[in-house]
C-alpha cells in the first residue's frame, strides 16, 4: 500500500511540475511568437513591460482577468461557459503520456520521466487530439453568432480531415517501433531518428500537425479577415484567454509529439536527455512561428483538396510501402 501511495505521490508531483512548466512555457511562447514575428517584419515586438518585455505575459494575464466576461444573450449558456475549459483541458491532458527524458535513478528506484507510461500512449494522444475539436465546435455553436458558427464548422471539417492523415502518418512509426507506447518509440530511435528513416511520414505528419494547430496557413476557423475571429468571436476576458492558452499548449504538445515520434525524443549527444528534449520541442515551436510569418492562408477549398486528395493518399501509400519494406527486411 505504501508503495502505491509513493507512486501516486510521485505521479502527482510530476503532474504539478508539468502543469506549472507547461503553463509558463505557453505564456512565454506567446511572447516569443510576438517577438520573433516582429523581428521577421523588422519590428521590435513587445519590449516595454520589464526588461526586454519579459513581463508582458503577466500584464496580459492581468488584463485578461480584469476584463468583462461577456455572455451573449442568445447564447447557449452552459455550453458557452464550458467550451474554453474543454479546449484548454484536452490540450493539457495530452502531456500525461509524453516522455520528456530517460528514466531517472533516484534512491534505488527508477523514476520514469513521464506521468503515466500507457502502452497505448499514441492512441491516447490521437484520442485527445480528436476530442480537442469539441471545445472549438461547441464554443462556436453556443455563441449563436454566424461568424462563430461558420468558424467552428470550418474548424470541424478541417480537423477531421487532417486528423486522418496525421493518424496514417503515425502508422509507419508504429510499424517500425512495434509498439504504441511512446517511451518504447523513443527507445527505438536511439540510433537514428525516424525523420531520417522515413522522411515522407515525417513531412506528412508535420503538415498535418500545422493544420491541427489551427494556425496560419491553416487558420480557417479564425480567419480574421473573413470571420472576425472565427469560433471565439463572442468570447472575452479570461474565457478568450483559455482558448488562447489552449492553442499554445496545443502547440507545445504537437511539438513534443513530433519530437517523440520523429526526432528521436530525448536522444542526443553530450547533453542530458531532458535538455535535448526541450531543445527539440522549442525548435519545432520556432518552426511553427516561422511558418506563420512566411506563408499566407490557404483558401478553404484548397485546404480540403490538399488534405483529402494529396496528403491522405500519400499517407496511405507510405504506410503500404513501409509495411512492405519491413516485411521484406524481416524475412
Amino acid at each position, binding site marked *: 500500500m505504501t508503495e502505491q501511495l509513493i507512486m501516486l505521490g510521485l505521479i502527482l508531483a510530476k503532474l504539478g511540475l508539468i502543469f506549472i512548466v507547461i503553463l509558463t512555457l505557453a505564456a512565454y511562447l506567446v511572447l516569443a511568437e510576438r517577438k520573433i514575428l516582429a523581428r521577421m517584419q523588422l519590428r521590435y515586438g513587445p519590449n516595454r513591460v520589464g526588461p526586454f518585455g519579459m513581463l508582458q505575459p503577466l500584464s496580459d494575464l492581468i488584463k485578461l482577468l480584469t476584463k468583462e466576461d461577456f455572455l451573449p444573450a442568445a447564447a447557449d449558456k452552459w455550453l458557452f461557459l464550458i467550451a474554453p475549459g474543454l479546449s484548454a483541458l484536452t490540450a493539457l491532458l495530452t502531456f500525461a503520456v509524453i516522455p520528456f527524458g530517460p528514466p531517472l535513478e533516484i534512491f534505488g528506484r527508477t523514476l520514469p520521466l513521464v506521468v503515466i507510461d500507457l502502452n*497505448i500512449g499514441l492512441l491516447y494522444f490521437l484520442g485527445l487530439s480528436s476530442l480537442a475539436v469539441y471545445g472549438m465546435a461547441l464554443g462556436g*455553436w453556443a455563441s449563436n453568432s454566424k461568424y462563430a458558427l461558420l468558424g467552428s464548422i470550418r474548424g470541424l471539417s478541417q480537423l477531421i480531415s487532417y486528423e486522418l492523415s496525421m493518424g496514417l502518418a503515425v502508422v509507419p512509426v508504429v510499424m517500425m517501433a512495434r509498439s*504504441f507506447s511512446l517511451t518504447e518509440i523513443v527507445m527505438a530511435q536511439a540510433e537514428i531518428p525516424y525523420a531520417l528513416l522515413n522522411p515522407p511520414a515525417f513531412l506528412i505528419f508535420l503538415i498535418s500537425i500545422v493544420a491541427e494547430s489551427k494556425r496560419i496557413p491553416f487558420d480557417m476557423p479564425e480567419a480574421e479577415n473573413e470571420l472576425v475571429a472565427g469560433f471565439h468571436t463572442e468570447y472575452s476576458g479570461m474565457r478568450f484567454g483559455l482558448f488562447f492558452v489552449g492553442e499554445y499548449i496545443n502547440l507545445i504538445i504537437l511539438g513534443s509529439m513530433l519530437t517523440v515520434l520523429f526526432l528521436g525524443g530525448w536522444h542526443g549527444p553530450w547533453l542530458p536527455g531532458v535538455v535535448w528534449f526541450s531543445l527539440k520541442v522549442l525548435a519545432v515551436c520556432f518552426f511553427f512561428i516561422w511558418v506563420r510569418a512566411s506563408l499566407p492562408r490557404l483558401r478553404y477549398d484548397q485546404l480540403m483538396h490538399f488534405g483529402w486528395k494529396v496528403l491522405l493518399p500519400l499517407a496511405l501509400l507510405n504506410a503500404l510501402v513501409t509495411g512492405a519494406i519491413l516485411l521484406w527486411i524481416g524475412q
Partner: protein
Amino acid sequence: MATWMFYILGAITVVATLLAITQRNPVHAVIYLVNSFFALALLFFLLGAPLVAAWEVIIYAGAIMVLFLFIIMMLEIAPGVEADRYGPNWLQWLPILLLAAALGICTLLLTGLDPVGSNGVPHWYASPRDFGYALFKEYALAIEVVSFQLLFAAVGAFYVGRPERKSKSPAGGDR
C-alpha cells in the same frame, strides 16, 4: 474494487444514454452521448482491452460524434432561445457536471490506483499485439468482409457526390 467500478461505469453509461435520448436540444444530446462513450471506453479499459477503449474514444467520440455535430450545425436547428437572464440554468448544468465528475474520478482511480490486479495485468488482459494477431489471424475473413463493405460505401459515396456533368450534349462538353 473492479466490480464496483464496473457497476458505477455501467450506471453512468446508462444514465448518460437516457439523457441523450430525452434531450430536446440536439447538441446537448451529442454531449451526453459523448459522455456515455467515455464511460464505455473506461469499461473496456477496465475489462483489459485498452486498444478497444482507445478506439471507442478516437472513432466514436472523436470522429463520428464530430460528424454528428457538423451535420447538426449545418442543418441550423435553432437552439430555442432561453429566458434572457445572465448566467446558466443550474438545473441544466447539474446532470452533465455530475456525470463528468464521476467519470473523472473513475479515470483517476483507474490509472492511478490500478484496481485491476496487483501488478495491473489481469490474465484476460489483451495487449495491442495480441489483439492485432487475434484480429488479423483468427477473424481475418470477417475483417476482410467488413473492410470490403466500407470500400463499397466509400465508392458509393464518391459516385453519389461526383461533380454533375454540366452539359448533356453527346460530346460531353469541352471542359
